[in-house]
């Protein structure tokens, strides 16, 4: 296998694995935590927490 082909293979595996991670994460309900954090003003981000 050439280097180029190896890179493409690794890339496709990474993309596939990332999509899988996202799906599992959504399924576990992590997005709720993200949404909850994102819709409130984050005092630490602002620097007053």
């Amino acid at each position, binding site marked *: 296998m050439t280097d180029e082909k190896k*890179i493409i293979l*690794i*890339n496709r595996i*990474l*993309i596939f*694995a*990332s*999509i*899988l*991670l*996202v*799906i*599992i*994460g*959504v399924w*576990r*309900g*992590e*997005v*709720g*935590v*993200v*949404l*909850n*954090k*994102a*819709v*409130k*003003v*984050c*005092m*630490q*981000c*602002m*620097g*007053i*927490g």
Partner: protein
Amino acid sequence: MKKERFFHKYRHWIQAAWFALTNGYLRGYTSGKIYTGNTKVLCFPGLNCYSCPGALGACPIGSLQAVFGSNTYRVSLYVFGVISLFGAVMGRLVCGFLCPFGLVQDLLYKIPFGPKRKNLPNHKILSKLRYVILILFVVLLSSLVKDVTGMAAPWFCEWICPSGALFAGIPLVILNPGFRTAIGFHFWWKLAILLILLFLSVVYYRPFCKYLCPLGALYGVFNPVSTFRIKVDQTKCVKCGGCQRACGMDIRTFETPNSTECIRCLNCVSACPTGALDTTWHIAGKDFADRYLAKSDETLANPEVVRTVILGCAMVFSSLFTLLLHLRSSVYANFIYFMTNVYPASYSPIVMGMNFAKVTVTVLVLINGISLILQCKKADAVRSSAQSMKILQVIYLLLCVGMIIAIVLNPPIIGVWLNNILTSPFPLLGMPFITLTLSRLDKIVHGEKKAGIGFAILFVFTILVSLLIPLFPILLGYALASAGLTGSGAVQ
């Protein structure tokens, strides 16, 4: 002299447009409150603070720490997945094009003040600092130092992030008097870090990206294996070092084109005097154009080619139309239910599955329509497309079975669907049209009159019906109202 590439030439405009698009909640900038809509479940690629008054999405580093620090989860598969997806597709192209804090530093460096340098002293050692920050502040401290409630603070946001201070802290403190009273040590600390970095950025190129940013450190790991890479044509390269001189990150592009430090600004690609540098995306685009697009001196005199293009346009048009009508009702709604895990009482998995199938069919038609137009001159384009369209018939058959099952399980659903037909008929009426005609692609393109006329009649009929039917309830409402019967509930 090589022509400067579009994306390089307009890079700052693209960065600014992306910032405007993803921070477009204008009311936030007047009211001093942040956006609280559903799109905030999505992480945007750049270091874009979610407490910026205009932000429509979440910051990946902030989200990562939020999940690490929550009392329900230890690691965030979702946020890691999103970051590695961005990384695997774009690598640090995000830094070059889609990060607001990158843009700020780029613009500051343009100020013609003082000497311009690339690196701080001890560059090699300092550039490892971003990994330390990533591991220590983002991962370890934010997941291990928990308070009595089992929650941990987002340490990077709290002690370092200048993007938060600039895009969230300063505007909110100015706009919202409530926050002004709460200012304390943290605020001044972060303001000091921000100011130091902003001043440094005038003299040194992107100091935060080079030495401190944990997000850039993460994306950098993907640079050598992402779909976007820089390639050096060794037969053209004369090792003049022009690329390194043009590079703000001081990378020897001709030796390490996919260095973890490269922010994909494309300065080097434009600067190379021999055109030895190119990007994988540009190469793929060129290959595609060579294979499929007509050259300007070729004509489309062949009637089969013309018919193929017309058919392709009809497919693109009808599927876009269907998608638009479907967007709110199924794509967006289902997506949000799915992402937020909150389902309305009327929710039914079968209906959701069917909506999904309908959207899949429509997207397939869209893709096939586009590929028909692009491949119009290839003799077997129509045949292969017709074959791939056969799958539509299978999906449509499954849809019918699904409908029957849904009705058996939940008879009142018929009422909902009737209402759907009244309000957005195209998906229901358009689907049979699409499946019927597309299986006859061959015949239409080869000029069989009957098939062509049948196609034209069906197409016009479907479009007319879809445009007219939405008017029915309105007309019915008028009729009822003028007859003195306010049909509330019956007509929506």
